């Protein structure tokens, strides 16, 4: 396998609705931004592309991928569509990685989009719930927030996680997004604001849950030789992992924990795993990526994480899957301040603040979640962090981390059905 680098990225502003643009135009906005950021890259140098969009229902347009490809001027070069629920963007990023690593392409554009405003919010929730088993799960009252609420109730029962700990994730991510002009929701909140907002699925409130968005994102990936011709600050992709699990969370086993390098069997004598409190696919993806990148102690060896916080609860569950802390310690991890940004005042006492910032961009909860774009958006935000170019792209450097040499991006589907983890590092 050849080493793979990310050389540029672009994101369209995520918004509740973009009636001014079709999906092709939104993709073009993000693509043009990425092209402009590396002026040495010419359209003729791009060998092909991969397209990321989740739902044919939102677009009501089959083969939408090729319509973006012809808009971008990338015909007659290779393209295919990648789809895997909420992890579609992360899977597409890795498909781009595969195209370069295999030698099939020297430069590949991975682009993604979603147009969720084309139906009312409750119809959108119905469409998303079709990503649960339509024979056995959907007809009971198909609603993803309900599924995640059941998972977190079990997490709280097993480990003593509290609703205030969930709310802290929301405060953190909304506050981080305050410095991110691409984010859909930039708000200064308190734990009380989160708990007093409308109850959606007990115990998750409106502010524990991400929103629907219109948006697009593009990542340009290249082989080593081309990468260094195009930019003096390419970011190397040093690890990729993809995990899967049973579609129906009711069918998940109650067995033994998949151990991370920094864990022992004796850490989990009584824990039935993954049950419905943990994401085995996330753990599996993390372990594969860590092995490839040579990471044995993720808390110490990773500088920041952009993870799939569709729910505040799933961010806490994911700390554990990624072995940033042990299973059961996710609530304490946020309460003690580990995943908060060092330079931001959150109005809370956080003794371990800034240890390992998680979702410096604001994550899905604040940036929005235009599904097919989301995993690629995370890659772009991580790319800018590692490059040290946050100020250039956000217009303000407040969110730039001092040390951002190695980042982790995490994309997640269903009730933890497909999960991808990719490790990105300073390549120069």
């Amino acid at each position: 396998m050849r080493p793979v680098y990310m050389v540029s990225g672009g994101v369209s502003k995520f918004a509740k609705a973009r009636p001014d643009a079709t999906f092709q135009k939104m993709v073009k906005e993000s693509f043009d931004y990425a092209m402009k950021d590396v002026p040495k890259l010419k359209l003729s140098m791009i060998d092909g592309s991969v397209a990321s969009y989740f739902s044919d229902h939102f677009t009501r347009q089959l083969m939408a991928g090729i319509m973006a490809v012809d808009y971008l001027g990338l015909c007659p070069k290779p393209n295919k569509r990648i789809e895997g629920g909420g992890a579609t963007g992360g899977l597409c990023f890795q498909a781009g990685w595969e195209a370069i690593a295999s030698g099939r392409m020297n430069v590949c554009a991975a682009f993604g989009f979603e147009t969720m405003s084309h139906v009312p919010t409750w119809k959108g929730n119905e469409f998303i719930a079709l990503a649960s088993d339509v024979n056995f799960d959907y007809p009971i009252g198909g609603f993803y927030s309900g599924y995640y609420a059941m998972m977190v109730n079990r997490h709280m029962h097993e480990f003593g996680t509290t609703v205030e700990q969930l709310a802290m994730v929301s405060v953190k991510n909304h506050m981080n997004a305050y410095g991110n002009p691409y984010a859909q929701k930039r708000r200064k909140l308190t734990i009380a604001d989160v708990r007093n907002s409308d109850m959606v699925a007990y115990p998750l409130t409106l502010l524990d849950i991400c929103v629907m968005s219109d948006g697009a994102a593009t990542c340009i990936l290249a082989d080593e030789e081309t990468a260094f011709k195009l930019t003096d600050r390419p970011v190397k992709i040093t690890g990729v992992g993809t995990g899967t699990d049973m579609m129906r969370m009711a069918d998940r086993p109650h067995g033994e924990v998949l151990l991370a390098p920094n864990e022992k069997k004796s850490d989990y004598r009584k824990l039935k795993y993954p049950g419905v409190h943990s994401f085995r696919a996330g753990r599996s993806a993390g372990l594969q990526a860590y092995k490839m990148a040579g990471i044995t102690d993720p808390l110490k060896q990773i500088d920041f994480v952009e993870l799939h916080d569709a729910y505040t609860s799933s961010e806490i569950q994911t700390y554990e899957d990624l072995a940033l802390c042990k299973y059961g310690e996710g609530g304490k991890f946020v309460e003690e301040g580990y995943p908060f940004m060092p330079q931001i005042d959150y109005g809370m006492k956080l003794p371990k603040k800034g240890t390992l910032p998680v979702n410096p961009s604001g994550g899905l909860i604040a940036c929005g979640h235009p599904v097919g774009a989301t995993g690629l958006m995370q890659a772009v935000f991580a790319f800018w962090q590692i490059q040290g170019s946050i100020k250039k792209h956000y217009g303000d450097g407040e969110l730039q981390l001092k040390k951002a040499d190695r980042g982790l991006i995490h994309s997640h589907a269903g009730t933890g059905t497909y999960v991808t983890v990719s490790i990105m590092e300073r390549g120069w």
Partner: protein
Amino acid sequence: MAKKNPAKAPAAPKKVEELMTGTTVFNVPMPADLKALKGMSPIVIKQPYQIDYIHSYGQDSPFFAGLSNGKLLGTKCRKCDYTWANPRLACTHCGRETEWVEIPQSGRVHTFTTCYFGGEEFLKETPFHLVLVEFDGVDTLFLSRLIGPVEPEEIRIGMKVKAKFRRNSQLKPSDVYFVPAE
């Protein structure tokens, strides 16, 4: 739609709900100078989409026949000694064909939630409780509705529940629901 929050009395809405109703438009204005088109606002139309699927439950059909006859049917792999509350034709662990077995109609709440909002199809049924039920001798859980409790505070993990069946079967997994049994 009225705001729903068990902690608060219903409040007047803070914003106007978007409606899918409207006026049918037959003509739109057009400027004489085509350069002005770049500044034109987008045209947004309503596009209805309705389908009746001919959906088969295939090899899982006996499960639904069971529900309409007051039985919960799962499948079991004899070799792995593993029982699924929802049927699957083949064992995930060894790939062998499973056999149909009747599973218990009494169990415990493994986890739960109360949905105050939902997908459009179920919005009119909110609030409702979802539960994952665990059964003795069955290795997987069972997603269902819990009927009876009013507030989520009345439900607890480990609570005993039992199955009830709709008198008029709809041939859907919602033909069975659970009620408290303690």
